[in-house]
C-alpha cells in the first residue's frame, strides 16, 4: 500500500516513523521498528527533506538500521538492543505528546478566550526616573554573569579554532615536504610518538590537500601506509 503524503508535511523523523507504524496497525516495539525500516528509508530517499532537518532524519535512519541488523543477525552483539529499546521508548513518549496535542488543538480553536484588561494608552512623557538600587557594583556583577554565560560558547569555539589552525599548519608542512620530495609516506608525515589528535589532524590535512587536488594518495590495503605523491 502506498502512502500518499509528501515528506514536507512531516513535522520530523519521529512523525514519519509513527505514521508508518500506525498505518501497519503495529504496536510500538523493536520488532515493528525493524519492519518499517525499509519504508522509512524509502520515504527519506524519495522525498526532499529540508537540508536543516536531514541530519535528524538520518540519525533515526541509522538507529533503525542498527535495530534491523540486530533482528537479522541476533548473534551480532552490538549495542543495538539498548538503542532499539531507546528508540521505541522515544517514539512512545513522542506519541503521548502527539495525542495530547490533539486536545490542545481542540481547545486552541474552541474560542474560549479569557480577555484581560487592556492597558490604558497614556502618552509617555520623557522623565528621569533613576532605578533605586543600581550601583556600579551591581552593573559589574551583572556583566560578569553575562560573561559567565558566554564561557561555554567561547570554550567550544576556541577548541574548534585551534583544530582549524593546526590543520592549516599541517597542510603547509606537508606541502613544503612535497616541494623537496616527490613521495612521502603518511607515517613520515606524522611525527613518531605523535598523539592520536595529531594523527587525526594530519589525516584531515591530507584529505583537504587531496580535495584541493594538490596531492594524490594511494593505500595498498586496510591499515597499510599511505603513499602521498604530488598531483602534477
Amino acid at each position: 500500500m502506498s502512502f500518499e503524503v509528501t515528506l514536507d508535511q512531516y513535522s520530523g523523523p519521529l512523525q514519519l516513523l509513527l505514521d508508518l507504524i500506525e498505518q501497519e496497525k503495529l504496536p510500538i516495539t523493536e520488532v515493528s521498528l525493524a519492519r518499517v525500516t525499509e519504508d522509512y528509508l524509502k520515504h527519506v530517499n524519495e522525498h526532499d527533506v529540508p537540508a536543516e532537518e536531514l541530519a535528524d532524519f538520518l540519525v533515526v535512519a541509522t538507529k533503525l538500521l542498527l535495530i534491523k541488523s540486530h533482528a537479522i543477525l541476533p548473534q551480532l552483539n552490538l549495542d543495538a538492543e539498548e538503542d532499539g529499546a531507546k528508540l521505541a521508548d522515544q517514539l512512545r513518549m513522542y506519541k503521548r505528546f502527539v495525542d495530547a496535542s490533539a486536545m490542545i488543538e481542540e481547545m486552541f480553536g474552541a474560542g474560549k478566550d479569557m480577555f484581560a484588561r487592556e492597558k490604558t494608552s497614556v502618552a509617555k512623557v520623557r522623565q528621569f526616573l533613576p532605578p533605586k538600587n543600581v550601583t556600579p557594583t551591581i552593573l559589574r556583577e551583572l556583566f560578569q554573569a553575562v560573561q559567565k554565560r558566554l564561557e561555554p560558547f567561547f570554550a567550544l569555539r576556541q577548541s574548534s579554532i585551534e583544530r582549524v589552525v593546526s590543520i592549516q599548519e599541517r597542510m603547509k608542512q606537508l606541502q613544503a615536504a612535497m616541494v623537496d620530495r616527490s613521495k612521502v609516506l603518511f607515517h613520515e608525515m606524522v611525527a613518531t610518538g605523535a598523539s592520536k589528535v595529531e594523527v587525526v589532524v594530519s589525516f584531515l590535512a591530507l584529505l583537504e590537500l587531496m580535495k584541493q587536488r594538490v596531492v594524490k594518495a594511494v593505500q595498498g590495503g586496510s591499515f597499510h601506509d599511505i603513499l602521498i605523491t604530488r598531483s602534477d
Partner: protein
Amino acid sequence: MITTSIESILFASAKPVAISVLKKSLNASDEVLLEAIADVKARFNVETSGIHVVEHEGKVQFVTNPSESAVVAALLKEEVSGELSRPSLETLTIIAYRGPITKPEIEQIRGVNCTLILRNLSMRGLVDETDDIERLQPVFTVSADFVRHLGIHSIADLPDYLDLHEDKKITELVDSLSDSMTSSLNDSAL
C-alpha cells in the same frame, strides 16, 4: 480582609500581578496569602461570574469568563484564533505539559531541530523564553496569553496534566537522550 485587598489590586492592575508582589504589599505570610488567593479563585472561577482569575508562572490576573469569549471579542474587535501548523502545535504541547523546558529537551522529544519553530512561537506570543541561571541556558514556558486563549485558569487544568508533567519515565528518557547525544551542543555552538 486580605481577600478584598487582593481583589482590588487585581482589578486595578492591567498586567498579571506576581504573588511575591502581593505578599510584599499586603505584608502577609505565604500561608495566609495562598489561602486567600485560593478563596478568590473559588468565588470567581464559577460559571455565573463574569470575571475569572488566571494563575500562570506565579502571577495572577483578572480575566473575562471563557464562555463570554465571543461577545467580548466582538466588542474588542479582536481576532481570536490563528492557524497552528502541526510542528508548532506539537512543540507548543510539549512546552505546555513539560515547561519550563530547554530547547535540547524539546528536541529530544520531537527528534528534530526546533530552532525556527521556537522563534516563530515566541514571535506569535505563544511561548515565553526566560533564562535559567542553574542550567545556564534559556527555558521555555507557554505565555499567559496562551493560557487565557485556551480558557483555562492555570496550565495545570490541561487534560491529563500531571500524567505528562510528572511522568518519571519521560524525565529519565529526556535526560538519558540528552547525555548520549551531542548534536544539540554542536548546534548551539554554531
